[in-house]
């Protein structure tokens, strides 16, 4: 069990085992959820610390565990088509809350889902084997038709197994706040289905010790057929239905207005939230808190308003009048801050361009100092003994001349929090290894990249809060607005349906393309 502080809610596929990661996610989710208000106090945003590998735009939190998560929402992390039901989970959480440590809870969900699927897959085989074991003597022998059924049964089970593996045995990429309606529906269906088959089997076959073996084999085959159809239903509900686009989501980041439009199909709000967050990490440029505010020099001018003194002895009903007077006076006062803003922007742009030019030149020069050693040149090295370096040393060797220009540039564009010296060296080493040009090396620094570029790959989950006025399992519809909140910014998502398209047809005869010259001639007579 690991004790480092981590986040749940949006875990990535990592090298850690699925269950342990889910365990971490679940625990941290609950912990952070309940301590939401207090955690803002111990937020620590690390900027400008070279030792710290990356600025985690999502702030770090305290480390201590919180066991008082009285959880009212449940999470279903299904792994196969037969994932555990919500009812089972709530029952289990109530049982396990005080008694077992958190890690056991991690295994419960997937284990039960796996059990249910295993149970469903083994049932047909059990149907076949039990009569053979229990009352073999009284069974009517059945020849070729049974063998045909055996073969088809075997292949159908194989197909079921492979497709379950292919489609459903994937580590989940998100934990949702409420249960996933379709998944729960499906595993309830499977459970009821298999249970009813067992019921009938028990009553009609086991009790009277039915001798007609062929009928039993056909019964088992029908169960497998029905399981295949349930899997088809699962495929359609979980994978296919939301593929056809039906809505257009506008995602706006609340701090700097970066926005994108996406087309999605019919999803519930929570699934749409996960979908949007998927796209957020690769489409949106990284959130840089340092670029948000107007320079102080401009804002400070606005602060110096003038005070309004009321000479009336009756001050109670004058407060609104006073504030209104102040606002009106402030509006009337000639405001030149837009002027300063314009010049400040121009100045900043000029400065950035100057630094960028210096950086580009420095990097180009630095790259000319090394070149790749060819294989045949190594043989001729006794003539000019050159020091052979591996990429890391080569990167360190050429980093020195460009370090200053790079640092100044990053500082001007306020990106210094995102790149530490170590990360720049690593990137330089990477570029040298892959024969990249200086321009390719600089691509990472000249423009703020998507958030994915700055994520650490240590399997930390990302905590997002879904804020919505509607219940999050309801489907998307027009005019819905929900937002995804992190600690210091949020994404506001608006839903509009895609317009209905009436496509008409117009046939153009290929022979109808004829042209004449537009003349405007003037003739003298």
């Amino acid at each position: 069990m690991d004790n480092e502080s981590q986040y749940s809610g949006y875990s990535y596929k990592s090298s850690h085992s699925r269950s342990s990661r889910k365990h971490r996610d679940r625990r941290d989710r609950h912990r952070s959820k309940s301590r939401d208000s207090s955690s803002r106090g111990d937020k620590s945003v690390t900027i400008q610390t070279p030792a710290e590998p990356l600025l985690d735009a999502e702030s770090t939190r305290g480390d201590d565990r919180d066991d008082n998560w009285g959880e009212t929402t449940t999470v279903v992390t299904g792994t196969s088509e037969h994932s555990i039901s919500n009812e089972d989970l709530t029952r289990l959480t109530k049982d396990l809350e005080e008694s077992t440590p958190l890690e056991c809870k991690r295994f419960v969900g997937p284990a039960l889902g796996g059990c249910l699927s295993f149970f469903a897959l083994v049932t047909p085989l059990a149907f076949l084997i039990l009569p053979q074991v229990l009352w073999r003597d009284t069974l009517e022998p059945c020849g070729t038709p049974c063998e045909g059924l055996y073969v088809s049964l075997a292949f159908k089970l194989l197909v079921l197994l492979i497709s379950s593996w292919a489609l459903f045995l994937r580590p989940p990429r998100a934990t949702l706040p409420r249960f996933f309606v379709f998944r729960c529906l499906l595993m309830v269906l499977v459970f009821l289905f298999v249970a009813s088959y067992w019921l009938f089997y028990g009553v009609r076959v086991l009790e009277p010790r039915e001798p007609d073996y062929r009928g039993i084999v056909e019964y088992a085959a029908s169960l497998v057929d029905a399981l295949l159809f349930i899997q088809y239903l699962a495929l359609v509900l979980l994978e296919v239905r939301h593929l056809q686009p039906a809505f257009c989501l506008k995602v706006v980041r609340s701090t700097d207005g970066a926005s994108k439009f996406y087309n999605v199909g019919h999803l519930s709000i929570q699934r749409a939230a996960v979908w949007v967050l998927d796209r957020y990490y690769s489409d949106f440029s990284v959130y840089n808190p340092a670029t948000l505010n107007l320079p102080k020099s401009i804002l400070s001018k606005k602060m110096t308003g003038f005070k309004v003194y009321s000479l009336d002895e009756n001050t109670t009903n004058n407060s609104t009048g006073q504030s209104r007077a102040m606002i009106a006076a402030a509006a009337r006062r000639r405001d030149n801050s837009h002027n300063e803003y314009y010049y400040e922007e121009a100045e900043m742009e000029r400065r950035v361009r100057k630094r960028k030019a210096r950086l580009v030149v420095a990097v180009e020069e630095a790259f000319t100092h090394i070149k790749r050693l060819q294989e045949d040149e190594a043989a001729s090295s006794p003539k000019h003994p050159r020091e052979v370096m591996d990429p890391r040393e080569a990167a360190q060797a050429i980093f020195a001349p460009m370090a200053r220009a790079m640092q100044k540039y990053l500082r001007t564009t306020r990106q210094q929090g995102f790149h530490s010296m170590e990360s720049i060296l690593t990137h330089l080493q990477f570029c040298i290894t892959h024969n990249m040009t200086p321009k390719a090396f600089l691509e990472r620094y000249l423009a703020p990249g998507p958030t994915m570029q700055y994520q650490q790959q240590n399997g930390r989950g990302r905590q997002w809060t879904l804020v919505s006025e509607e219940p999050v399992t309801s489907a998307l519809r027009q005019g819905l607005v929900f937002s995804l909140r992190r600690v210091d910014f949020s994404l506001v998502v608006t839903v509009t349906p895609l317009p209905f398209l009436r496509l008409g047809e117009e046939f153009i005869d290929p022979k109808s393309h004829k042209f004449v010259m537009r003349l405007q001639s003037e003739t003298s007579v």
Partner: protein
Amino acid sequence: MSFVPGQPVTAVVQRIEIQKLRQGDKLILGFSIGGGIDQDPGQNPFSEDKTDKGIYVTRISPGGPADVANLRMGDKIMQVNGWDMTMVTHDQARKKLTKQKEDVVRLLITRKSLEETVRLQLKSMLS
């Protein structure tokens, strides 16, 4: 001077007679024409109605026969020696004007100011 297809065109016209001038072995009139049913009427700077495909006088050489005969730039030529000029191509108009066997052309031209003048006259006569 707008024209409705199928309806007769009515306009106030002025009769101008131009004597051709011999220059070398050619008889010239001393002005340039533009327009025609095969031309782009939208580029005609002189017409009021930009769908008018009639023949317009675009340039008068100063001191030439047309200038002497009081032809003005911007005049629309309605007839040349009895030949209609309102529905002809540019080339047909040129041919009608440059017949080498004729040494005088009698044009019927119309211009906006003619209409104004006539209207004013009528008003003054009636009042």
